[in-house]
């Protein structure tokens, strides 16, 4: 029971849940860059939210089914066809052996997720089967998909009901984003004007935007730093600002400690959106007090619980 990779796409990997509790050993989170979209895809094929699925980046793969299998696609707005016919995201689709799924380029959003009933078969390493490319861990030999790969599907498949994600649970895609964010531990190393600029200007996502992090282009920030800051813990969503004054925001594969001032922290409620920002997108950081950010998070968890009961584990 396999799927053949006819064309691999730009950067297609197997992703599941993050690696947790190992950051003190240097093991980053990894896992889906947009876990909410991964969970939504798995929900449509009656899988657990974290069943191993494909994460597709900017330009998608072409896949041939060698077995009958239900699947679903969610996330960024990619051009989708099944045997040449337009295919809609957010719906359970029953593919037949011999069918070809072609995923083209993305309009808005950087990543989509393709979940298969029963999930892909991938070995767990350090607590997850998610691919961590820098360490060649998890997924398909720790690497991106290549032409000719045979992806193995789990033999056990759940009884799949045909579902469609309700409109209110289809994550809206955009090329202009707002991320709620709090001050971080070295925000006070910014001048007053620079802190205002950080939270009050339009940033453009730079060309270096990947699973490690995203460069933010725009205003230059004045940060007092001598290049000798002792390495300190960082997390997905941490915004760091080196002496050059150009901030960057860390994503799921980023290192666990860093030596640049931490000037903001994207709040947990919006961290999953980092997986959907593509180069050239506009982004604003919306300042939140810590208590306010917690209220936002609880509101979001409560909203999504109706469709994804495991939402606390997902975001």
């Amino acid at each position, binding site marked *: 029971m396999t799927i053949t990779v006819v064309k691999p796409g730009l950067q297609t990997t197997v992703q599941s849940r993050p690696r*947790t*509790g*190992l*950051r*003190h*050993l*240097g*093991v*980053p989170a990894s896992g889906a860059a947009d876990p909410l979209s991964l969970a939504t895809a798995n929900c449509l094929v009656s899988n657990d939210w974290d069943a191993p699925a494909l994460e597709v980046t900017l330009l998608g793969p072409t896949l041939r089914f060698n077995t009958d299998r239900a699947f679903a696609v969610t996330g960024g707005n990619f051009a989708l066809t099944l045997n040449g016919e337009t295919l809609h995201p957010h719906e359970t689709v029953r593919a037949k052996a011999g069918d070809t799924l072609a995923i083209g380029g993305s309009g808005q959003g950087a990543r989509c997720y393709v979940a298969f009933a029963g999930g892909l078969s991938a070995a767990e*390493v*350090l607590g997850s089967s998610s691919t961590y490319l*820098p*360490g060649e*861990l998890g997924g398909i030999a720790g690497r991106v998909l290549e032409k000719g790969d045979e992806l193995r599907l789990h033999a056990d498949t759940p009884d799949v009901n045909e579902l469609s994600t309700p409109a209110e649970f289809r994550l809206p895609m955009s090329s202009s984003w707002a991320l709620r*964010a*709090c*001050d*971080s*531990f070295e925000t006070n190393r910014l001048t007053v004007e620079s802190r205002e600029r950080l939270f009050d200007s339009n940033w453009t996502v730079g060309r270096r935007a990947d699973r490690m992090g995203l460069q933010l282009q725009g205003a230059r920030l004045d940060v007092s730093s001598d*290049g*000798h800051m*002792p*390495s*300190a*813990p960082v*997390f997905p*969503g941490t915004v760091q600002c080196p002496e050059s004054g150009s901030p960057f925001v860390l994503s799921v594969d980023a*290192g*666990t*400690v*860093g*030596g640049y001032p*931490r000037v903001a*922290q*994207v*709040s*947990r409620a919006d961290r999953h959106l980092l997986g959907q920002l593509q180069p050239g997108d506009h982004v604003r950081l919306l300042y939140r007090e*810590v*208590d306010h*950010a*917690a209220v936002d*998070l*609880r509101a979001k*968890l409560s909203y999504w619980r109706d469709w994804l009961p495991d939402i*606390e584990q997902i975001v």
Partner: protein
Amino acid sequence: MGSRYVQLHCADDQLSMTAESPADAQALAAALRASGEWLDVVPGIDSVVVRFDAGAIDARDAQRRVTELLADGVPAIRDSQQLVEIPVVYGGTFGPDLVDVCTQLNLSTEDFIAMHTQRNYRVEMLGFTPGFAFVGGLDERLHVARRQQPRQRVAPGSIGIADAFTGLYTLSSPGGWTLVGRTPANLFRPRSEEPFVLQVGTRIRFVPIEVAEFDT
């Protein structure tokens, strides 16, 4: 040991506290991790960050809980009695910054190698990428700043220096440390029972080898 006052700063779902030393940070982190009630407990060189479940508890309650857990002090991390020898090829393509750093420090490369290999060190922290080791105890005469322009790719096994530390790169990654050598030792083995060869408290010594010995 003994009671201590911890001042906590909050960033979204994270609490940071200062530590007196890398060893103190490791001890604080181990004590907090042992309680099993945090999403992550990560030590830095002079701080510890705890990530709490902001969906379930308020920052203020998390702060109170951290203070309670540390109120009676924390046991120190014990050093390993084992001494691990790390073979190193210094200089050349294996340590591309050695010549520059020796010029900066006004040392011959032979002096540098002699000074770097003559003492025992201690692993003070793991972090950055899986198994990357911050090794403390570098001779003060060898302290240099990070490179102004980090490299896009550093080879696995590379050995760099920055301030008071020698750093061991276990994976290919970007990196800003001054590279003085490389080891053929495989220090991160994800598929083995014990993936992390080096642990906090492990004592190590660097042993110079020739290029010809690198692949053997």
